[in-house]
């Protein structure tokens, strides 16, 4: 598998365990982006000349690939710059229009700052109430709390599909059913940033209203992301930025906007990135979900088993219960142990191992469980091997020895 990722030709010893931050890119994705610039570099939907038409076709095709990938309709896919932009788009357009003083917004205690701060700011500006679904001591969402938290004032629930710290997979379908049973008008936004590269997503089956994800965590390029919007609710989302490509007709005194999704995408989009994202999805489909999920589950089991052999290592996340992904955050519990930064620095310098250290954009969650100096996070991708994990464990044992 590593042969498919050119970065390993340039860094043969690299042990990359930070796929939750960004996925590495397969050659097909890199080539596809380069091909746009070298073979048909033209703007889309404007030129009648040949290369512009090729660019337009490739761009449109990519939107279709993405729609099929998550079982959406093609006009339900809005291109954004990433998950953060997708969530902000909802908070700033739908939120501006629909949230009023006294309304309630519900999120969870395990959100990435990207799915927390936009709602916190919106609630503050609108004098709305922001409520949190608690995380239990076994690092799962407290679903029993839903009956108390959701009420007729609840306008939206925004929650993550997979926690970028805990690795917990939330039972989204069940949660949405529960929410809609209490208040059918409550909309649900799911942050899929950590999910899309690891198991199949079916937005129709989940019953979700908004689904946000990034291209770069899906082994695609940076700068491109997706907001899925259930087409039934488009009318409640007024576009908030305007310009070329998003309009049908412009007069001196008024403008007729284009249909969704185009009215949300003014300006020249990241064309090469959008096209290459389609190729990233094709890459995943070529490998196949059964192979990906099996491989990553095997590695998660192995990683869990190995990490638990290291004494005083405390995992911030659920046990290996089959309802979690290979995103494992941990810290040493004894005082004067190596801090996350020390671990990350030593692993990199001595062993060329890439892990993430700190709060992983989830500060309140770390404080909730007393991990006040952050954690070291290991996250797996399609290219990782048992050998990578052996090297990590060897590196961690070395760090422990240095500090003993």
């Amino acid at each position: 598998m590593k042969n498919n990722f050119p970065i390993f030709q340039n860094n043969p010893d690299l042990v990359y365990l930070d796929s939750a931050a960004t996925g590495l890119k397969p050659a097909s994705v890199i080539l596809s982006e380069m091909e746009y610039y070298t073979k048909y570099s033209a703007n889309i939907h404007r030129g009648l000349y040949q290369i512009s038409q090729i660019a337009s076709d490739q761009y449109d095709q990519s939107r279709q690939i993405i729609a099929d990938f998550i079982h959406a309709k093609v006009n339900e896919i809005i291109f954004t710059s990433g998950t953060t932009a997708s969530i902000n788009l909802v908070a700033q357009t739908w939120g501006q229009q629909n949230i009023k003083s006294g309304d309630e917004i519900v999120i969870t205690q395990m959100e990435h700052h990207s799915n927390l701060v936009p709602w916190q700011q919106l609630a503050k500006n609108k004098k709305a109430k922001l409520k949190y679904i608690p995380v239990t001591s076994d690092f799962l969402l407290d679903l029993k709390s839903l009956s108390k938290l959701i009420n007729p004032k609840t306008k939206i629930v925004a929650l993550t599909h997979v926690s970028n710290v805990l690795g917990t997979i939330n039972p989204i379908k069940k949660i949405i059913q529960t929410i809609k049973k209490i208040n059918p008008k409550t909309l649900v936004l799911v942050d899929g940033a950590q999910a899309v590269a690891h198991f199949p997503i079916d937005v129709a089956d989940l019953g979700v209203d908004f689904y946000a994800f990034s291209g770069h965590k899906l082994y695609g390029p940076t700068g491109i992301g997706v907001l899925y919007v259930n087409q039934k609710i488009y009318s409640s989302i007024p576009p908030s930025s305007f310009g070329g490509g998003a309009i049908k007709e412009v007069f001196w005194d008024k403008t007729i906007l284009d249909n969704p999704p185009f009215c949300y995408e003014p300006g020249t989009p990241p064309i090469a990135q959008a096209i290459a994202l389609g190729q990233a999805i094709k890459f995943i489909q070529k490998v196949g979900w059964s192979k990906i999920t099996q491989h990553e589950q095997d590695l998660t089991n192995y990683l869990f088993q190995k990490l638990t052999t290291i004494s005083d290592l405390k995992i911030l996340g659920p046990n290996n219960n089959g309802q979690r992904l290979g995103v494992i955050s941990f810290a040493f519990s004894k005082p004067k142990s190596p801090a996350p930064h020390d671990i990350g620095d030593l692993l990199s310098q001595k062993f060329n191992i890439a892990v993430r250290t700190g709060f992983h954009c989830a500060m309140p969650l770390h404080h909730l469980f007393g991990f006040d100096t952050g954690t070291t996070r290991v996250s797996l991708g399609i290219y990782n091997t048992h050998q990578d994990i052996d090297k990590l464990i060897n590196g961690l044992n070395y760090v422990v020895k240095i500090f003993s």
Partner: protein
Amino acid sequence: MDDLYKEIILERYKNPKNLGTIKGGIQVEEINALCGDKIKIWLEVKNGTITDAKFEGSGCAISVAATDILMDMIKGKKIVDVQQMSGAEIENEMGIELSSVRKRCAYIGLEAIKKIKNSLNNL
């Protein structure tokens, strides 16, 4: 032994010499949100000169060791002079060269002291 984590750094991390608080001292704190380092510093200043310096905090080995070493470096110095110090002087004293990310850990104590308002310099 690793260069970055040589004996002096690890020793200062495990057993800092200047741990504690100073009653009635000037108190400042600084956090490094990136990694969760949190340092509180107490300075006793007489006639503009730092007569004692102590700190408390949690963080990585580099931030704790660097702050402990900094406390030694600044005692007896004018606070105005300390506020002009560069981070490189701490690195020099530690005898290590840090990456740009780790510099933020090592400079945390100095950043805290730089926040002390000038009006206090005449204490």
